[in-house]
């Protein structure tokens, strides 16, 4: 017969763990002597609690702190490398990079659009300063509204990173800033090369989409 004594049922795990004493201990023992349902439940809890876990051995336990420390260091190096790139990016060539990020944002945003929507581009043109003529031609195909949307997206995405980097730069611990300076030349060049290559790929994809649209039209 099912037992509905909620208090006893709550005490059973404590009884199992030998954490009861005094009146509660006596209460549970008396109850178990007369309640088959609770005896069943207690046997079940014993079985569950006794499920064995094999011991992997002392060598395993001894090695774990070093293994964790190694992985943590690896993770920190990766994070510092990325932060270093971004810090160098925003700290040194703001105007050029801001323009490049805007172009990339606009281009990426456009290639993700549904092709049908591209046919609805308004005729408005917009002028963007400090861009090369080819890029400017591409950007002019977008409406002012769409360009503003893409630029806003790029600014929003970069805002938290800039904030985090400002904090790092202001940190009295100079080690991070020194590391960033060392990353400056080599990593910055690598990043710009990657950015230029990506920009070229996206421009090619935009041109192809425009040509396909003309052919369909």
């Amino acid at each position, binding site marked *: 017969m099912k037992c509905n004594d*909620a208090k006893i*049922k*709550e005490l059973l*795990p404590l009884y*199992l*763990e030998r954490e009861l004493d005094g009146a509660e201990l006596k209460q549970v023992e008396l109850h178990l002597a007369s309640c*088959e*349902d609770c*005896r*069943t*439940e207690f*046997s*079940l*809890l014993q*079985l*569950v*609690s006794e*499920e064995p*876990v*094999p011991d*992997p051995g002392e060598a*395993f*336990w001894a090695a*774990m*702190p070093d*293994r*964790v*420390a190694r*992985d*943590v260091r690896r*993770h*920190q190096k990766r*994070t510092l490398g990325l932060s270093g790139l971004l810090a160098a990016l925003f700290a040194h060539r703001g105007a050029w990079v801001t323009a490049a990020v805007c172009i990339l944002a606009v281009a990426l945003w456009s290639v993700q659009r549904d092709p049908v929507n591209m046919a609805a581009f308004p005729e408005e043109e917009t002028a963007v300063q400090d861009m090369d003529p080819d890029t400017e031609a591409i950007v002019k195909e977008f409406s002012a509204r769409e360009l503003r949307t893409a630029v806003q997206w790029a600014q929003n995405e970069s805002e938290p990173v800039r904030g985090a980097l400002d904090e790092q730069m202001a940190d009295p611990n100079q080690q991070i800033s020194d590391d960033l300076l060392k990353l400056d030349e080599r990593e910055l060049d690598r990043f710009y090369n990657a950015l230029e290559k990506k920009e070229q790929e996206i421009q090619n994809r935009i041109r192809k989409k425009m040509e396909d649209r003309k052919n369909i039209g």
Partner: protein
Amino acid sequence: MDEDLDLIERTATGEREAFNQLVIKYQKPLYALLYRMVSNHEDAADLLQKTFVKAFTGLDGFEQRSSFKTWLYQIAINLAKNVYRDRSRVQQVSIDDVVVKKNPGIVESLIKKESRLRLNKAMTELPEKQRLTLMLRVQDGKKFDEIADIMKCSVGTAKSNYHYAVYKLKAMMGDTETLDEKQKLTRSEAGLLPACRKKP
């Protein structure tokens, strides 16, 4: 908890000894929990390492709303959940294949093994939250307020999950007789005891 906060602060300043102490303090209970969730050493060991790495690289995200131990358990459980879902905990062993001698020790261990296999199967059939709650309460000895913190639910919900898990396990394992009675029946079938009649 104050001791943990002190160790965390010292770890954050780069003190390796404090870092080691935190790992050593929690590696065994975390490993036991993870092993019970994934049922094999390789996955449990891998998840244990990932749990610590995630915790130490994300210390900025530890807001001290709960204890560091609770936070570690949350990370471990979240990492283990996906692995657990892909694994079956049912082990198929035929007791008929084993030569049963009239030796109470062997029969006793076989009875226990059979019960354990049935229990493992029943545990896999429990809903995840109920199974986890039961494991944390009975195998890990966590109190309901700790379980509520780890599972991010109320204490009432933790208790409900626990009671419902026990209720379901009893139903799946067969609650018409006690486990002791089951064992007596099996022993009589093995020729070790006079035949017993089932209780009406």
